[in-house]
Protein backbone atom coordinates (compact mmCIF):
# COMPACT_ATOMS: atom_id res chain seq x y z
CA UNK A 1 0.00 0.00 0.00
CA UNK A 2 2.97 2.34 0.17
CA UNK A 3 4.24 4.28 -2.80
CA UNK A 4 7.94 4.71 -2.39
CA UNK A 5 10.26 6.78 -4.52
CA UNK A 6 13.52 5.34 -3.30
CA UNK A 7 14.91 2.19 -1.83
CA UNK A 8 15.86 3.77 1.52
CA UNK A 9 12.37 4.90 2.20
CA UNK A 10 11.04 1.50 1.25
CA UNK A 11 13.37 -0.23 3.67
CA UNK A 12 12.40 2.13 6.42
CA UNK A 13 8.73 1.51 5.89
CA UNK A 14 9.22 -2.20 5.60
CA UNK A 15 10.76 -2.11 9.04
CA UNK A 16 7.83 -0.22 10.39
CA UNK A 17 4.77 -2.31 9.92
CA UNK A 18 1.44 -0.75 10.76
CA UNK A 19 -1.17 -2.58 12.76
CA UNK A 20 -4.78 -2.10 13.75
CA UNK A 21 -5.77 -3.39 17.18
CA UNK A 22 -9.40 -4.36 17.57
CA UNK A 23 -11.21 -5.27 20.78
CA UNK A 24 -13.64 -8.16 20.37
CA UNK A 25 -16.01 -7.30 23.17
CA UNK A 26 -17.59 -10.72 23.44
CA UNK A 27 -14.43 -12.82 23.04
CA UNK A 28 -12.49 -10.88 25.69
CA UNK A 29 -9.76 -10.50 23.11
CA UNK A 30 -7.76 -8.09 21.00
CA UNK A 31 -7.19 -8.88 17.32
CA UNK A 32 -3.95 -7.67 15.75
CA UNK A 33 -4.47 -6.82 12.10
CA UNK A 34 -1.50 -6.26 9.78
CA UNK A 35 -2.40 -3.22 7.71
CA UNK A 36 0.05 -4.18 4.96
CA UNK A 37 -1.78 -7.43 4.24
CA UNK A 38 -5.15 -6.80 5.92
CA UNK A 39 -4.83 -10.11 7.71
CA UNK A 40 -5.30 -10.83 11.39
CA UNK A 41 -1.93 -12.06 12.62
CA UNK A 42 -2.72 -12.64 16.25
CA UNK A 43 -5.32 -12.59 18.98
CA UNK A 44 -4.49 -11.60 22.54
CA UNK A 45 -6.60 -12.49 25.54
CA UNK A 46 -7.51 -9.39 27.57
CA UNK A 47 -9.97 -8.58 30.39
CA UNK A 48 -13.75 -9.03 30.29
CA UNK A 49 -15.82 -7.09 27.74
CA UNK A 50 -13.05 -4.95 26.23
CA UNK A 51 -14.88 -1.88 24.92
CA UNK A 52 -12.01 0.28 23.69
CA UNK A 53 -8.43 0.11 22.45
CA UNK A 54 -5.85 2.89 22.56
CA UNK A 55 -2.20 2.99 21.58
CA UNK A 56 0.40 5.17 23.26
CA UNK A 57 1.71 8.00 21.05
CA UNK A 58 5.14 6.30 20.89
CA UNK A 59 3.40 3.21 19.49
CA UNK A 60 4.91 0.92 22.11
CA UNK A 61 1.92 -0.12 24.14
CA UNK A 62 -1.71 -0.92 23.55
CA UNK A 63 -4.33 -0.43 26.23
CA UNK A 64 -7.75 -2.03 26.35
CA UNK A 65 -10.39 -0.83 28.77
CA UNK A 66 -12.39 -3.82 29.98
CA UNK A 67 -15.97 -2.88 30.75
CA UNK A 68 -16.84 -5.94 32.82
CA UNK A 69 -13.33 -6.66 34.04
CA UNK A 70 -13.27 -3.16 35.54
CA UNK A 71 -9.64 -3.16 34.44
CA UNK A 72 -7.15 -2.05 31.81
CA UNK A 73 -4.98 -4.55 29.95
CA UNK A 74 -1.57 -3.17 28.94
CA UNK A 75 0.03 -4.95 25.98
CA UNK A 76 3.49 -4.64 24.42
CA UNK A 77 3.18 -3.72 20.73
CA UNK A 78 6.55 -5.37 20.14
CA UNK A 79 5.78 -8.81 21.56
CA UNK A 80 1.96 -8.67 21.55
CA UNK A 81 2.09 -9.96 25.12
CA UNK A 82 0.16 -8.68 28.11
CA UNK A 83 2.46 -6.64 30.35
CA UNK A 84 0.00 -5.85 33.11
CA UNK A 85 -3.65 -5.82 34.10
CA UNK A 86 -4.49 -2.62 35.95
CA UNK A 87 -7.36 -2.65 38.45
CA UNK A 88 -8.93 0.10 40.51
CA UNK A 89 -10.24 2.14 37.58
CA UNK A 90 -13.88 2.24 38.64
CA UNK A 91 -16.94 0.53 37.24
CA UNK A 92 -16.95 0.17 33.44
CA UNK A 93 -13.82 1.95 32.24
CA UNK A 94 -14.78 3.16 28.79
CA UNK A 95 -11.88 4.78 26.89
CA UNK A 96 -8.27 5.96 27.23
CA UNK A 97 -6.05 8.75 25.95
CA UNK A 98 -2.52 9.92 26.63
CA UNK A 99 -0.31 12.82 27.56
CA UNK A 100 3.30 12.00 26.73
CA UNK A 101 4.55 15.30 28.13
CA UNK A 102 2.99 14.55 31.50
CA UNK A 103 3.65 10.82 31.23
CA UNK A 104 0.07 10.01 32.01
CA UNK A 105 -3.02 8.42 30.63
CA UNK A 106 -6.63 9.18 31.34
CA UNK A 107 -9.52 6.74 31.67
CA UNK A 108 -13.17 7.72 32.20
CA UNK A 109 -15.41 5.14 33.88
CA UNK A 110 -19.06 5.15 32.92
CA UNK A 111 -20.70 4.22 36.21
CA UNK A 112 -18.16 5.79 38.54
CA UNK A 113 -18.53 9.08 36.71
CA UNK A 114 -14.86 9.79 37.32
CA UNK A 115 -11.77 10.31 35.22
CA UNK A 116 -8.89 8.15 36.42
CA UNK A 117 -5.37 9.52 35.95
CA UNK A 118 -2.65 6.88 35.59
CA UNK A 119 1.14 6.96 35.34
CA UNK A 120 2.39 5.66 31.98
CA UNK A 121 5.46 3.97 33.50
CA UNK A 122 4.06 2.45 36.67
CA UNK A 123 0.36 2.11 35.66
CA UNK A 124 -0.54 3.39 39.12
CA UNK A 125 -3.73 5.38 39.61
CA UNK A 126 -2.57 8.88 40.58
CA UNK A 127 -5.90 10.62 40.84
CA UNK A 128 -9.65 10.16 40.44
CA UNK A 129 -11.47 13.28 39.25
CA UNK A 130 -15.28 13.31 39.66
CA UNK A 131 -16.79 14.52 36.39
CA UNK A 132 -20.43 13.54 35.87
CA UNK A 133 -22.94 10.82 35.08
CA UNK A 134 -22.39 8.43 32.22
CA UNK A 135 -18.86 9.13 30.94
CA UNK A 136 -18.13 7.67 27.52
CA UNK A 137 -15.11 9.34 25.90
CA UNK A 138 -11.82 11.11 26.49
CA UNK A 139 -9.48 13.13 24.29
CA UNK A 140 -6.23 14.89 25.10
CA UNK A 141 -5.73 18.04 23.01
CA UNK A 142 -2.87 17.90 20.48
CA UNK A 143 -0.75 20.29 22.59
CA UNK A 144 -1.61 18.21 25.68
CA UNK A 145 -2.78 21.25 27.62
CA UNK A 146 -6.35 20.02 28.09
CA UNK A 147 -8.18 16.79 28.70
CA UNK A 148 -11.73 16.56 27.34
CA UNK A 149 -14.20 14.09 28.78
CA UNK A 150 -17.46 13.43 26.96
CA UNK A 151 -20.59 12.22 28.67
CA UNK A 152 -24.22 11.90 27.95
CA UNK A 153 -25.08 13.81 31.06
CA UNK A 154 -22.45 16.40 31.84
CA UNK A 155 -21.72 17.31 28.21
CA UNK A 156 -18.06 18.02 27.55
CA UNK A 157 -15.91 18.58 30.61
CA UNK A 158 -12.48 20.16 30.13
CA UNK A 159 -9.84 19.34 32.68
CA UNK A 160 -6.51 21.05 33.27
CA UNK A 161 -3.93 18.24 33.40
CA UNK A 162 -1.59 20.36 35.48
CA UNK A 163 -4.01 20.76 38.35
CA UNK A 164 -6.50 17.98 37.56
CA UNK A 165 -9.23 20.57 38.06
CA UNK A 166 -12.26 21.11 35.88
CA UNK A 167 -11.68 24.23 33.74
CA UNK A 168 -14.99 24.33 31.89
CA UNK A 169 -18.13 22.35 31.16
CA UNK A 170 -19.83 22.70 27.81
CA UNK A 171 -23.48 21.65 27.82
CA UNK A 172 -23.46 19.33 24.83
CA UNK A 173 -25.86 16.58 25.79
CA UNK A 174 -25.58 13.11 24.30
CA UNK A 175 -21.87 13.55 23.41
CA UNK A 176 -19.97 10.45 22.40
CA UNK A 177 -16.72 10.41 20.40
CA UNK A 178 -14.31 13.34 20.35
CA UNK A 179 -11.35 14.24 18.15
CA UNK A 180 -9.30 17.30 17.28
CA UNK A 181 -8.04 19.09 14.22
CA UNK A 182 -4.29 18.34 14.06
CA UNK A 183 -3.47 22.01 14.79
CA UNK A 184 -5.65 21.87 17.90
CA UNK A 185 -7.76 24.84 16.80
CA UNK A 186 -10.99 22.85 16.76
CA UNK A 187 -12.54 19.87 18.38
CA UNK A 188 -15.28 17.67 17.03
CA UNK A 189 -17.87 15.87 19.12
CA UNK A 190 -20.44 13.31 17.99
CA UNK A 191 -23.97 13.77 19.25
CA UNK A 192 -25.28 10.22 19.46
CA UNK A 193 -28.84 11.24 20.28
CA UNK A 194 -29.31 14.10 17.81
CA UNK A 195 -27.48 12.47 14.87
CA UNK A 196 -24.97 15.25 14.32
CA UNK A 197 -21.38 16.36 14.84
CA UNK A 198 -20.60 19.57 16.71
CA UNK A 199 -17.53 21.62 15.81
CA UNK A 200 -16.10 23.79 18.55
CA UNK A 201 -13.46 26.49 18.55
CA UNK A 202 -10.87 25.21 21.02
CA UNK A 203 -9.82 28.60 22.38
CA UNK A 204 -13.29 30.02 23.01
CA UNK A 205 -15.24 26.73 23.29
CA UNK A 206 -17.77 28.32 21.00
CA UNK A 207 -19.96 26.05 18.90
CA UNK A 208 -19.04 26.88 15.31
CA UNK A 209 -21.21 24.44 13.46
CA UNK A 210 -23.43 21.43 13.82
CA UNK A 211 -23.59 19.05 10.88
CA UNK A 212 -26.19 16.34 10.45
CA UNK A 213 -24.74 12.87 9.86
CA UNK A 214 -26.26 9.37 10.08
CA UNK A 215 -28.12 7.88 13.05
CA UNK A 216 -26.38 7.59 16.43
CA UNK A 217 -22.79 8.56 15.51
CA UNK A 218 -20.33 6.94 17.95
CA UNK A 219 -16.69 6.84 16.75
CA UNK A 220 -15.03 9.85 15.13
CA UNK A 221 -11.55 10.40 13.71
CA UNK A 222 -9.90 13.40 12.09
CA UNK A 223 -7.29 12.77 9.39
CA UNK A 224 -3.73 13.65 10.30
CA UNK A 225 -3.48 16.04 7.35
CA UNK A 226 -6.36 18.08 8.70
CA UNK A 227 -8.51 17.63 5.61
CA UNK A 228 -11.20 15.16 6.59
CA UNK A 229 -13.28 13.91 9.51
CA UNK A 230 -14.78 10.40 9.51
CA UNK A 231 -17.82 9.47 11.59
CA UNK A 232 -19.22 5.98 12.30
CA UNK A 233 -23.04 6.12 12.17
CA UNK A 234 -23.93 3.18 14.40
CA UNK A 235 -27.58 2.95 13.42
CA UNK A 236 -27.20 3.75 9.71
CA UNK A 237 -24.60 1.14 8.72
CA UNK A 238 -22.50 3.93 7.26
CA UNK A 239 -19.49 6.21 7.63
CA UNK A 240 -19.86 9.93 6.93
CA UNK A 241 -16.88 11.69 5.33
CA UNK A 242 -16.76 15.37 6.21
CA UNK A 243 -14.65 18.13 4.76
CA UNK A 244 -12.80 19.60 7.73
CA UNK A 245 -12.81 23.13 6.25
CA UNK A 246 -16.49 23.49 5.35
CA UNK A 247 -17.70 20.73 7.63
CA UNK A 248 -19.97 19.51 4.91
CA UNK A 249 -20.65 15.83 4.36
CA UNK A 250 -18.77 14.86 1.19
CA UNK A 251 -19.63 11.17 1.12
CA UNK A 252 -21.58 8.54 2.97
CA UNK A 253 -20.03 5.11 2.68
CA UNK A 254 -22.00 1.95 3.38
CA UNK A 255 -20.26 -0.39 5.86
CA UNK A 256 -21.42 -3.24 8.12
CA UNK A 257 -23.98 -3.37 10.92
CA UNK A 258 -23.48 -1.09 13.94
CA UNK A 259 -20.22 0.64 12.91
CA UNK A 260 -18.66 1.67 16.19
CA UNK A 261 -14.92 2.39 16.47
CA UNK A 262 -13.00 4.19 13.74
CA UNK A 263 -9.30 4.88 13.14
CA UNK A 264 -7.07 6.16 10.37
CA UNK A 265 -3.60 5.14 9.20
CA UNK A 266 -0.73 7.59 9.80
CA UNK A 267 -0.58 8.45 6.09
CA UNK A 268 -4.37 8.97 5.94
CA UNK A 269 -4.80 6.45 3.13
CA UNK A 270 -7.03 4.00 4.92
CA UNK A 271 -9.83 4.24 7.47
CA UNK A 272 -10.75 1.16 9.50
CA UNK A 273 -14.15 0.85 11.12
CA UNK A 274 -15.37 -1.90 13.42
CA UNK A 275 -18.80 -3.32 12.61
CA UNK A 276 -20.05 -4.34 16.05
CA UNK A 277 -23.12 -6.07 14.65
CA UNK A 278 -21.40 -7.89 11.74
CA UNK A 279 -18.21 -9.19 13.39
CA UNK A 280 -16.11 -7.50 10.73
CA UNK A 281 -13.87 -4.52 10.08
CA UNK A 282 -14.40 -2.45 6.93
CA UNK A 283 -11.35 -0.96 5.24
CA UNK A 284 -12.03 2.31 3.44
CA UNK A 285 -9.74 3.70 0.77
CA UNK A 286 -9.79 7.43 1.52
CA UNK A 287 -8.92 8.47 -2.03
CA UNK A 288 -11.69 6.45 -3.64
CA UNK A 289 -14.07 6.78 -0.66
CA UNK A 290 -15.08 3.17 -0.87
CA UNK A 291 -14.74 -0.04 1.08
CA UNK A 292 -11.86 -2.06 -0.39
CA UNK A 293 -11.81 -4.91 2.08
CA UNK A 294 -13.92 -6.47 4.82
CA UNK A 295 -12.13 -8.55 7.40
CA UNK A 296 -13.69 -11.05 9.78
CA UNK A 297 -12.93 -10.38 13.48
CA UNK A 298 -14.06 -11.86 16.77
CA UNK A 299 -17.53 -11.31 18.22
CA UNK A 300 -18.81 -7.73 18.62
CA UNK A 301 -15.69 -5.81 17.52
CA UNK A 302 -15.88 -2.42 19.18
CA UNK A 303 -12.70 -0.45 19.92
CA UNK A 304 -9.93 0.14 17.40
CA UNK A 305 -6.49 1.78 17.48
CA UNK A 306 -3.87 2.05 14.73
CA UNK A 307 -0.10 2.44 14.99
CA UNK A 308 0.42 6.21 15.29
CA UNK A 309 2.76 8.37 13.21
CA UNK A 310 6.34 8.42 14.48
CA UNK A 311 6.65 11.01 17.20
CA UNK A 312 9.75 12.65 15.71
CA UNK A 313 8.66 12.45 12.09
CA UNK A 314 4.97 13.01 12.08
CA UNK A 315 3.14 11.39 9.19
CA UNK A 316 4.86 8.54 7.40
CA UNK A 317 2.52 5.86 6.17
Amino acid at each position, binding site marked *: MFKQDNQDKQTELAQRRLFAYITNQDNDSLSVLDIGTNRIIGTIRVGQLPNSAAISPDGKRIYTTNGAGNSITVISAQTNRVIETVKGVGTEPFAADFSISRNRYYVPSFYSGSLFVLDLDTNKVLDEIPVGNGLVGVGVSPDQSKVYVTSVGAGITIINPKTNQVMATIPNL*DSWGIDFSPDGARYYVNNA*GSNSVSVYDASSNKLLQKTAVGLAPLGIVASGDGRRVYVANSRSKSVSVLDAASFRVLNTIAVGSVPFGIAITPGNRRVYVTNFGSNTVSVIDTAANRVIDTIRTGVNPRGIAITPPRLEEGVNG
Partner: protein
Amino acid sequence: MGLAYVGNQNSSTLTVINTDGDEIVKTIPVGRNPVQVDTSFDRTEVLTANGGERSISVISTRTNQVIEIIRNVTPEPFGAVHADGKLFVPDQFTGNVTVLDAGSGTLIKRIPVVTRILSAVLHPNNQKLYVTSLVHNIWIIDVTTNQLIQSIPKEAIWGLAFTPDGKRFIANHYLSNFAAIYSTCTNRLIGKIPVGIAPIGVAISSNGERAYVTNSRSGSVSVIEIAAKRVIKTIPVGRVPYEVALSPDNRKIYVTNYGGTTVSVIDSKSLRVITTISVGAGPRGISII
Protein backbone atom coordinates in the same frame (compact mmCIF):
# COMPACT_ATOMS: atom_id res chain seq x y z
CA MET B 1 -41.20 -18.45 50.11
CA GLY B 2 -39.83 -15.94 47.68
CA LEU B 3 -36.94 -16.53 45.35
CA ALA B 4 -34.66 -13.73 44.20
CA TYR B 5 -32.77 -14.29 40.95
CA VAL B 6 -29.67 -12.12 40.66
CA GLY B 7 -27.76 -11.91 37.39
CA ASN B 8 -24.02 -11.59 37.97
CA GLN B 9 -22.84 -9.88 34.81
CA ASN B 10 -19.14 -10.44 35.32
CA SER B 11 -19.37 -14.05 36.56
CA SER B 12 -22.00 -15.09 34.00
CA THR B 13 -24.10 -16.73 36.68
CA LEU B 14 -27.51 -16.39 38.25
CA THR B 15 -27.65 -16.51 42.05
CA VAL B 16 -30.89 -17.80 43.52
CA ILE B 17 -31.66 -16.45 47.01
CA ASN B 18 -34.40 -17.65 49.33
CA THR B 19 -35.92 -14.39 50.55
CA ASP B 20 -37.13 -15.94 53.80
CA GLY B 21 -33.74 -16.85 55.18
CA ASP B 22 -31.63 -14.84 52.75
CA GLU B 23 -29.48 -17.84 51.98
CA ILE B 24 -28.25 -18.82 48.56
CA VAL B 25 -30.21 -21.75 47.18
CA LYS B 26 -28.26 -22.23 44.00
CA THR B 27 -25.84 -20.62 41.59
CA ILE B 28 -26.77 -21.31 37.98
CA PRO B 29 -24.32 -20.80 35.11
CA VAL B 30 -26.03 -18.82 32.35
CA GLY B 31 -24.80 -17.21 29.11
CA ARG B 32 -22.00 -14.66 29.10
CA ASN B 33 -22.59 -11.37 30.88
CA PRO B 34 -26.27 -11.39 31.84
CA VAL B 35 -27.78 -7.90 32.05
CA GLN B 36 -31.51 -7.64 32.84
CA VAL B 37 -33.27 -10.56 34.60
CA ASP B 38 -36.93 -10.93 33.66
CA THR B 39 -39.69 -13.41 34.45
CA SER B 40 -42.14 -15.09 32.14
CA PHE B 41 -45.73 -13.95 32.31
CA ASP B 42 -46.81 -16.89 34.50
CA ARG B 43 -43.57 -16.60 36.54
CA THR B 44 -42.60 -20.21 35.90
CA GLU B 45 -39.50 -19.10 34.03
CA VAL B 46 -36.72 -16.61 34.53
CA LEU B 47 -35.00 -15.08 31.51
CA THR B 48 -31.50 -13.64 31.44
CA ALA B 49 -30.46 -11.44 28.54
CA ASN B 50 -26.83 -12.35 27.98
CA GLY B 51 -25.20 -9.18 26.68
CA GLY B 52 -21.91 -10.90 25.98
CA GLU B 53 -23.27 -13.82 24.03
CA ARG B 54 -26.14 -12.63 21.84
CA SER B 55 -28.38 -15.06 23.72
CA ILE B 56 -31.17 -15.46 26.25
CA SER B 57 -31.10 -18.19 28.89
CA VAL B 58 -34.42 -19.58 30.06
CA ILE B 59 -34.46 -21.02 33.59
CA SER B 60 -37.28 -23.04 35.13
CA THR B 61 -38.22 -21.58 38.53
CA ARG B 62 -39.43 -25.02 39.58
CA THR B 63 -36.17 -26.87 39.01
CA ASN B 64 -33.79 -23.87 38.87
CA GLN B 65 -32.22 -25.34 35.77
CA VAL B 66 -31.52 -23.83 32.39
CA ILE B 67 -34.13 -25.34 30.12
CA GLU B 68 -33.40 -23.43 26.95
CA ILE B 69 -30.90 -21.06 25.34
CA ILE B 70 -32.17 -18.82 22.56
CA ARG B 71 -29.16 -17.90 20.41
CA ASN B 72 -28.29 -15.28 17.80
CA VAL B 73 -30.88 -12.89 19.14
CA THR B 74 -29.15 -9.54 18.63
CA PRO B 75 -25.55 -8.24 19.14
CA GLU B 76 -26.11 -7.18 22.75
CA PRO B 77 -29.37 -8.31 24.37
CA PHE B 78 -30.19 -6.11 27.35
CA GLY B 79 -33.46 -7.63 28.58
CA ALA B 80 -36.24 -10.05 27.59
CA VAL B 81 -39.75 -8.90 28.42
CA HIS B 82 -42.49 -11.50 28.01
CA ALA B 83 -45.78 -10.14 26.69
CA ASP B 84 -48.50 -11.32 24.32
CA GLY B 85 -46.73 -14.64 23.73
CA LYS B 86 -43.60 -12.83 22.60
CA LEU B 87 -40.27 -11.74 23.96
CA PHE B 88 -39.25 -8.11 23.53
CA VAL B 89 -35.47 -7.79 23.56
CA PRO B 90 -33.88 -4.33 23.65
CA ASP B 91 -30.34 -3.83 22.32
CA GLN B 92 -28.58 -0.63 23.24
CA PHE B 93 -26.30 -0.16 20.25
CA THR B 94 -28.42 -1.50 17.42
CA GLY B 95 -31.16 0.61 18.98
CA ASN B 96 -33.70 -2.04 18.09
CA VAL B 97 -36.21 -3.95 20.13
CA THR B 98 -36.16 -7.47 18.73
CA VAL B 99 -39.45 -9.36 18.93
CA LEU B 100 -39.25 -13.15 19.22
CA ASP B 101 -41.93 -15.77 19.44
CA ALA B 102 -41.77 -16.82 23.08
CA GLY B 103 -42.50 -20.44 22.30
CA SER B 104 -40.18 -21.12 19.38
CA GLY B 105 -37.68 -18.30 19.83
CA THR B 106 -38.03 -17.37 16.16
CA LEU B 107 -37.65 -13.81 15.00
CA ILE B 108 -40.88 -11.91 14.41
CA LYS B 109 -39.66 -8.36 13.96
CA ARG B 110 -36.98 -5.81 14.72
CA ILE B 111 -38.43 -2.49 15.82
CA PRO B 112 -36.00 0.43 15.37
CA VAL B 113 -36.29 2.65 18.44
CA VAL B 114 -33.33 4.70 19.64
CA THR B 115 -29.66 4.34 20.51
CA ARG B 116 -28.56 3.32 23.99
CA ILE B 117 -31.72 1.65 25.19
CA LEU B 118 -31.48 1.17 28.96
CA SER B 119 -34.62 -0.61 30.01
CA ALA B 120 -37.93 -1.98 28.81
CA VAL B 121 -40.85 -2.14 31.22
CA LEU B 122 -44.32 -3.53 30.65
CA HIS B 123 -47.31 -1.45 31.73
CA PRO B 124 -49.57 -3.37 34.18
CA ASN B 125 -52.27 -3.58 31.49
CA ASN B 126 -49.81 -5.81 29.56
CA GLN B 127 -50.40 -3.90 26.36
CA LYS B 128 -47.70 -1.27 26.26
CA LEU B 129 -43.96 -1.60 26.59
CA TYR B 130 -42.11 1.48 27.82
CA VAL B 131 -38.53 1.77 26.58
CA THR B 132 -36.02 4.20 28.08
CA SER B 133 -32.80 5.49 26.60
CA LEU B 134 -29.63 7.20 27.73
CA VAL B 135 -30.07 9.87 25.07
CA HIS B 136 -33.69 10.97 25.11
CA ASN B 137 -37.41 10.24 25.30
CA ILE B 138 -39.59 7.42 26.55
CA TRP B 139 -40.65 5.20 23.68
CA ILE B 140 -43.88 3.19 23.80
CA ILE B 141 -44.41 -0.02 21.87
CA ASP B 142 -47.81 -1.66 21.41
CA VAL B 143 -47.05 -5.29 22.23
CA THR B 144 -49.99 -6.59 20.20
CA THR B 145 -49.11 -4.89 16.91
CA ASN B 146 -45.33 -4.66 17.54
CA GLN B 147 -45.45 -1.01 16.53
CA LEU B 148 -43.75 1.98 18.05
CA ILE B 149 -46.81 4.07 18.87
CA GLN B 150 -45.51 7.02 20.83
CA SER B 151 -42.41 8.85 21.93
CA ILE B 152 -42.67 11.08 24.98
CA PRO B 153 -40.14 13.91 24.89
CA LYS B 154 -38.00 13.61 28.00
CA GLU B 155 -34.34 13.80 28.80
CA ALA B 156 -32.47 10.56 29.45
CA ILE B 157 -34.31 8.18 31.73
CA TRP B 158 -32.96 4.95 33.12
CA GLY B 159 -35.25 2.95 35.41
CA LEU B 160 -39.02 3.24 35.21
CA ALA B 161 -41.73 1.59 37.30
CA PHE B 162 -45.50 1.72 37.32
CA THR B 163 -47.76 1.98 40.33
CA PRO B 164 -49.79 -1.25 40.68
CA ASP B 165 -52.91 0.41 39.24
CA GLY B 166 -50.87 1.57 36.23
CA LYS B 167 -52.09 5.15 36.59
CA ARG B 168 -48.72 6.59 37.38
CA PHE B 169 -45.13 5.82 36.72
CA ILE B 170 -41.89 6.89 38.29
CA ALA B 171 -39.00 7.58 35.98
CA ASN B 172 -35.41 8.13 37.06
CA HIS B 173 -33.85 11.14 35.40
CA TYR B 174 -30.35 9.73 35.35
CA LEU B 175 -28.60 12.90 34.23
CA SER B 176 -30.38 15.38 36.50
CA ASN B 177 -30.46 13.32 39.69
CA PHE B 178 -34.16 13.24 40.37
CA ALA B 179 -37.03 10.78 40.27
CA ALA B 180 -40.21 12.03 38.65
CA ILE B 181 -43.79 10.92 39.07
CA TYR B 182 -45.82 11.04 35.87
CA SER B 183 -49.44 10.48 35.02
CA THR B 184 -49.57 7.54 32.61
CA CYS B 185 -52.62 8.95 30.92
CA THR B 186 -51.32 12.45 30.18
CA ASN B 187 -47.55 11.88 30.62
CA ARG B 188 -47.64 15.03 32.70
CA LEU B 189 -45.18 15.59 35.52
CA ILE B 190 -46.89 15.27 38.90
CA GLY B 191 -43.89 15.42 41.18
CA LYS B 192 -40.17 15.94 40.93
CA ILE B 193 -38.16 14.41 43.76
CA PRO B 194 -34.43 15.09 44.11
CA VAL B 195 -32.60 11.86 44.95
CA GLY B 196 -28.91 10.85 44.99
CA ILE B 197 -26.48 11.01 42.09
CA ALA B 198 -27.18 9.10 38.88
CA PRO B 199 -30.38 7.22 39.83
CA ILE B 200 -30.78 3.94 37.92
CA GLY B 201 -33.18 1.36 39.36
CA VAL B 202 -36.65 1.94 40.77
CA ALA B 203 -39.23 -0.37 42.36
CA ILE B 204 -42.65 0.42 43.79
CA SER B 205 -44.29 -1.42 46.70
CA SER B 206 -47.38 -3.43 45.86
CA ASN B 207 -49.60 -1.09 47.89
CA GLY B 208 -48.36 1.75 45.69
CA GLU B 209 -47.19 3.82 48.64
CA ARG B 210 -43.43 3.72 48.38
CA ALA B 211 -40.75 3.79 45.76
CA TYR B 212 -37.14 2.72 46.16
CA VAL B 213 -34.52 4.30 43.93
CA THR B 214 -30.87 3.26 43.56
CA ASN B 215 -28.40 6.14 43.38
CA SER B 216 -25.57 4.59 41.41
CA ARG B 217 -22.91 7.23 42.08
CA SER B 218 -23.91 7.90 45.69
CA GLY B 219 -23.91 4.26 46.74
CA SER B 220 -27.34 4.63 48.32
CA VAL B 221 -31.05 3.94 48.04
CA SER B 222 -33.64 6.72 48.33
CA VAL B 223 -36.94 5.76 49.89
CA ILE B 224 -39.79 7.85 48.48
CA GLU B 225 -43.23 8.33 49.92
CA ILE B 226 -45.18 8.63 46.70
CA ALA B 227 -48.20 10.52 48.05
CA ALA B 228 -46.03 13.06 49.86
CA LYS B 229 -43.64 13.21 46.88
CA ARG B 230 -40.60 13.24 49.10
CA VAL B 231 -37.63 11.17 50.18
CA ILE B 232 -38.15 9.86 53.71
CA LYS B 233 -34.80 8.14 54.02
CA THR B 234 -31.52 7.60 52.22
CA ILE B 235 -29.87 4.27 52.97
CA PRO B 236 -26.19 3.61 52.24
CA VAL B 237 -25.64 0.35 50.35
CA GLY B 238 -22.73 -0.98 48.22
CA ARG B 239 -20.82 0.42 45.25
CA VAL B 240 -22.86 1.33 42.15
CA PRO B 241 -26.27 0.08 43.31
CA TYR B 242 -28.08 -0.80 40.11
CA GLU B 243 -31.41 -2.57 40.34
CA VAL B 244 -33.88 -2.94 43.18
CA ALA B 245 -36.71 -5.42 43.83
CA LEU B 246 -39.12 -6.22 46.66
CA SER B 247 -39.79 -9.57 48.29
CA PRO B 248 -43.33 -10.90 47.62
CA ASP B 249 -44.46 -9.87 51.12
CA ASN B 250 -42.84 -6.45 50.62
CA ARG B 251 -40.94 -6.82 53.88
CA LYS B 252 -37.55 -6.70 52.28
CA ILE B 253 -35.88 -4.76 49.51
CA TYR B 254 -33.03 -6.27 47.50
CA VAL B 255 -30.42 -4.09 45.84
CA THR B 256 -27.72 -5.30 43.42
CA ASN B 257 -24.38 -3.58 43.94
CA TYR B 258 -23.03 -3.68 40.41
CA GLY B 259 -19.69 -2.10 41.34
CA GLY B 260 -18.98 -4.98 43.73
CA THR B 261 -20.07 -8.54 44.45
CA THR B 262 -22.98 -8.19 46.85
CA VAL B 263 -26.71 -7.72 47.25
CA SER B 264 -27.88 -5.44 50.06
CA VAL B 265 -31.07 -6.47 51.85
CA ILE B 266 -33.09 -3.66 53.42
CA ASP B 267 -35.85 -4.12 55.99
CA SER B 268 -38.81 -2.08 54.75
CA LYS B 269 -39.95 -1.22 58.28
CA SER B 270 -36.74 -0.07 59.89
CA LEU B 271 -35.30 1.05 56.53
CA ARG B 272 -31.92 -0.37 57.45
CA VAL B 273 -29.66 -2.82 55.71
CA ILE B 274 -30.20 -6.05 57.63
CA THR B 275 -27.84 -8.25 55.66
CA THR B 276 -25.43 -8.18 52.75
CA ILE B 277 -25.25 -11.31 50.63
CA SER B 278 -22.13 -12.23 48.66
CA VAL B 279 -23.12 -13.18 45.15
CA GLY B 280 -21.07 -13.20 41.91
CA ALA B 281 -19.13 -10.32 40.34
CA GLY B 282 -21.00 -7.37 38.92
CA PRO B 283 -24.54 -8.25 40.11
CA ARG B 284 -26.88 -6.26 37.92
CA GLY B 285 -30.36 -7.56 37.11
CA ILE B 286 -32.77 -8.96 39.71
CA SER B 287 -36.22 -10.51 39.64
CA ILE B 288 -38.11 -11.88 42.62
CA ILE B 289 -40.94 -14.40 42.36
